[in-house]
C-alpha cells in the first residue's frame, strides 16, 4: 500500500523542498479559488432551500482536491468532471454563473465556454471514465501532446465502467489520469462497504500502471501530484490512478439527510483537516496574512458571489417549448404536435 503524499501539514507548515515548485502568486490564486468555491457553494445551498435552485451536490470540504486538479491541467488538456467538481470547473474557467444556471435546471448552463476542453458535468456515476479513456485514445492516434483527467468519487470505483476504462487505458497505454475523490461516502454507503481493499490507489496494479494516494485536503499535494502525473501521461503515455483522500462534509445532495447515517463523531476529525483553514495558516505564517486582510477578502468574495447570483437570476427563463429542441436534427411529427400543444397552452396561460 502506497503511503499518502503530503506537502501542507495540518498546522500550516510545508515540505520546503516540494513547495519550491509552486510560485507565490499561484498560492494566492489557490486560496482565492478555494474560498470562492466554498462561498459559491454555500450560497447555492441557501438558494436551493429558498426554491431558487434545483438539486445540488455540495462540494464543501473538497475544495483542495477540486482546485488542485483544476489548476494542474494545461489549457490544451481535457477534463471530464462528475458532479462534485464544481470548484475544479471554476478553476478551469467555467463561469460560476453558468454553474448556477445549470443547477437551477437551465441546461444552457452546461454549454462549455468557447475553446473549452471540459466535458459537461456527468451525473451518471462513473460513465465518463470511458469518455476520458476514449478522448485519450483519440489524442494518441492523432499524435496530440495532451493529457486527459477524469474525476469521480469512491462510489464510481464499484462501477463496471471503472474497470473497463482503466483496463483499456492500461492496455492501450493512454495519456489519461483517473482522479478519484475518495470522500468516504457514496450517498449513504461508507467507504468500508465500498471495497474490500484498504485504498483505492492499490487497485491500479491490476491495470498495470501506477496508483498514488494523496492527502486530498492538501491543495499543494493535489496540484503537484496531478500535474506530475499529467506530464508523465503526456510525454510517456503512462496512465495513472490518483486517489485524493478527502471527506464530504455535507449531505450527498440537497435531497439527502446525512444525519440519518452519519454521526457528528465521524465528522469531527475531518473538521480539523479543513483544507482552507490549513492553507490560511500557511499564508499567515509565510506571507503575513492577517485578520484584517481576511475580512476584506471575504467581503470581496461575498460581493462577487452576490453579483454572480444577480447575473444568473437576470437571465431570462428558458421557454417550456425549448425542451423539444436539440434532440433531433429533424423533429419528428409527434414532437412537433406536442410542441404546438405546449405553445398553445402557454399562449392561454399568458392571457
Amino acid at each position, binding site marked *: 500500500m502506497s503511503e499518502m503524499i503530503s506537502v501542507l501539514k495540518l498546522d500550516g507548515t510545508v515540505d520546503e523542498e516540494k513547495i519550491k515548485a509552486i510560485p507565490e502568486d499561484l498560492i494566492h490564486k489557490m486560496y482565492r479559488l478555494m474560498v470562492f468555491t466554498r462561498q459559491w457553494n454555500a*450560497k447555492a445551498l441557501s438558494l436551493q432551500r429558498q426554491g431558487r435552485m434545483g438539486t445540488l451536490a455540495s462540494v464543501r470540504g473538497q475544495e483542495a482536491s477540486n482546485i488542485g486538479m483544476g489548476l494542474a491541467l494545461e489549457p490544451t488538456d481535457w477534463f471530464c468532471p462528475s458532479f462534485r467538481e464544481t470548484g475544479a470547473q471554476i478553476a478551469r474557467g467555467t463561469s460560476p454563473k453558468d454553474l448556477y444556471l445549470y443547477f437551477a435546471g437551465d441546461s444552457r448552463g452546461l454549454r462549455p465556454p468557447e475553446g473549452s476542453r471540459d466535458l459537461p458535468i456527468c451525473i451518471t456515476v462513473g460513465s465518463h471514465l470511458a469518455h476520458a479513456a476514449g478522448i485519450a485514445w483519440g489524442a494518441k492516434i492523432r499524435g496530440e501532446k495532451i493529457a486527459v483527467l477524469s474525476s469521480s468519487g469512491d462510489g464510481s470505483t464499484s462501477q463496471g465502467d471503472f474497470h473497463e476504462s482503466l483496463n483499456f487505458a492500461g492496455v492501450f497505454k493512454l495519456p489519461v489520469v483517473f482522479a478519484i475523490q475518495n470522500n468516504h461516502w457514496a450517498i449513504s454507503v461508507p467507504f468500508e462497504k465500498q471495497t474490500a481493499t484498504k485504498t483505492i490507489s492499490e487497485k491500479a496494479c491490476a491495470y498495470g500502471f501506477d496508483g498514488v494516494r494523496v492527502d486530498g485536503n492538501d491543495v499543494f499535494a493535489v496540484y503537484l501530484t496531478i500535474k506530475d502525473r499529467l506530464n508523465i501521461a503526456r510525454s510517456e503515455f503512462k496512465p495513472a490512478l490518483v486517489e485524493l483522500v478527502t471527506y464530504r462534509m455535507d449531505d450527498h445532495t440537497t435531497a439527502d439527510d446525512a444525519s440519518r447515517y452519519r454521526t457528528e463523531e465521524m465528522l469531527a476529525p475531518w473538521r480539523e483537516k479543513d483544507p482552507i483553514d490549513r492553507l490560511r495558516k500557511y499564508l499567515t505564517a509565510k506571507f503575513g496574512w492577517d485578520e484584517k486582510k481576511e475580512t476584506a477578502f471575504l467581503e470581496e468574495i461575498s460581493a462577487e458571489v452576490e453579483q454572480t447570483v444577480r447575473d444568473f437570476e437576470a437571465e431570462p427563463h428558458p421557454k417550456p417549448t425549448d425542451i423539444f429542441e436539440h434532440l433531433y436534427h429533424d423533429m419528428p411529427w409527434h414532437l412537433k404536435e406536442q410542441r404546438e400543444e405546449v405553445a398553445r397552452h402557454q399562449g392561454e396561460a399568458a392571457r
Partner: protein
Amino acid sequence: MREVFRLPDVGEGIAEAEIVEYLVNVGDIVKADQNVVRVETDKAVVELPSPFSGVVVEIPHKPGDTVRVGDPLLVVETEAAVRPAVPRREERARPPEEEKARPLPALKPLKPEEKPPETPPAAAAERVLATPHTRRLARELGIDIATVTGSGRGGRVTDEDVREAAVRKAPPPPRAPTAAAVVPPATAGFDFEKYGPTKRVLLKGVRKRTAEVMARAWSTIPHVTHFDEADVTELLQVVERERGLAEERKVKLTVLSFLIKAAAEALRRFPQFNASLDETTGELVYKEYFNVGFATDTEAGLMVPVIRDVDKKSILQIAGELQDLSRRARDRSIELDEMRGGTFTISNVGALGGRWATPIIVHPEVAILCSLRARKQPVVRNDEIVIRTIMPLAVSFDHRVLDGADAARFMSYIVALLEDPMRMLVEVA
C-alpha cells in the same frame, strides 16, 4: 413592500412538509439567507433560509401544520434599500407584453369531410391539468376529468378531487370489500352547525391512516373478544428482582416484555393465531416467523412498532427493543419498515387504567391481545380470600378462522405462563 416566502420543493418531488419550528417571531429583523424555519419533509428535516431581508410581519402557520409546496411560510416587509435588485424568477417567467399579444398558433387546416371540433381551440387549450395517474383514476371511476374542479396548485385536479367527484356522482353503493377507499360520506346532509358553533380539523397523517385501517378491519373482520385475567403477583416479584440486572445493561425490564415472550410461545403452540386469511384464494396462511407488534401511544397518534423473531429472543432483548422502538416511535425517527411485517399485535393500555377493552385486530392479522392495568384485589385461593395482583386480559379474534374454544385455549396458556414465571423458564424456547 411585502414579500412572501413560499415553501419550495426542497427535495426531489416533495409535495408538502410539516412545520417543525419557526426560528423567528413576528417583529424580528431577518437577513437574506438567515434560517427562519425548520420543516420536515418525507425525506428530512431541513432549515429554510429567508430569500429577503426585512421585518417579519406574518407567520401564517404553527408547528405541526402541514404546508403544501407553494403555500406561504413567512411574510417579510422589506425595506427598499435591502430589496433584491432583481425580480423573482417566477415573475420574469411571464412572457413580455408582445408575446402575450401574439395570436395563437394556427391549428392544422381541417379536411373538408372532417367535422369541425365541437370545442373551439381556446377550450382545447383549457385542457384540465392532472397527472397521468389521476387521469387513469378518473377513467377507472368513470368520471370525465374535464368536469372536475381542481383544488391543486394552478387548478390541478388531484386524486382526492376525482375520488370526491366519484362519491358525489355515485348512488349509495352496495358495500363491497374494495369500496374501502371510496366510502360514501355517511354524514352527508348533517347540519353540524344547527345546534351550536363547531370547529373543523382535517384528519391527516397518522390519525387519517388509523381511521382508514380501523374502518377496514372493523368492516371486514367478524370480531369476537374473549376476556380473562392473570394473577401476576409472582411475575411482578421477578420483574422487581431482576430490574437491577437489566439496568446494568441500560434496559428497563417491564411486564410487557414477559407478555410478549409468553404470547410468542402461545403463537408457536397455536399457529392458527399466527396466520392470515388470504381473501383472494380462501387459504389460511400460517407464518413460520413470529413478529409481534405493540401499540404505542405517541403525540402523533397510535403507532405499532414490530419486534421481529420474538421466539428467538430473550426477555431482556425484547425489553431492550421495546424501549428503543417506542422511544423512536415517539420522536418519529422510526423507519416505516420497523412498523411492518407483524404477525400478531399486543395493545397494552395498562398504565392508562380501565378494566375491559375490545381491541380491533390489525388487518390482515387474525388476533390481538390487550392487557390492562394490574391491580391488587381480593381473590379466592384454597377457599380463602387473599390479596393478589390481577391483570385483566382481552383477546379479539377473527371468527372466520378461529373459534371461541381456540381463543380460550390460547388465552389460558398465556395466563398459565404469566402466573408461573418459572414455567416460562422451563418451557419457553
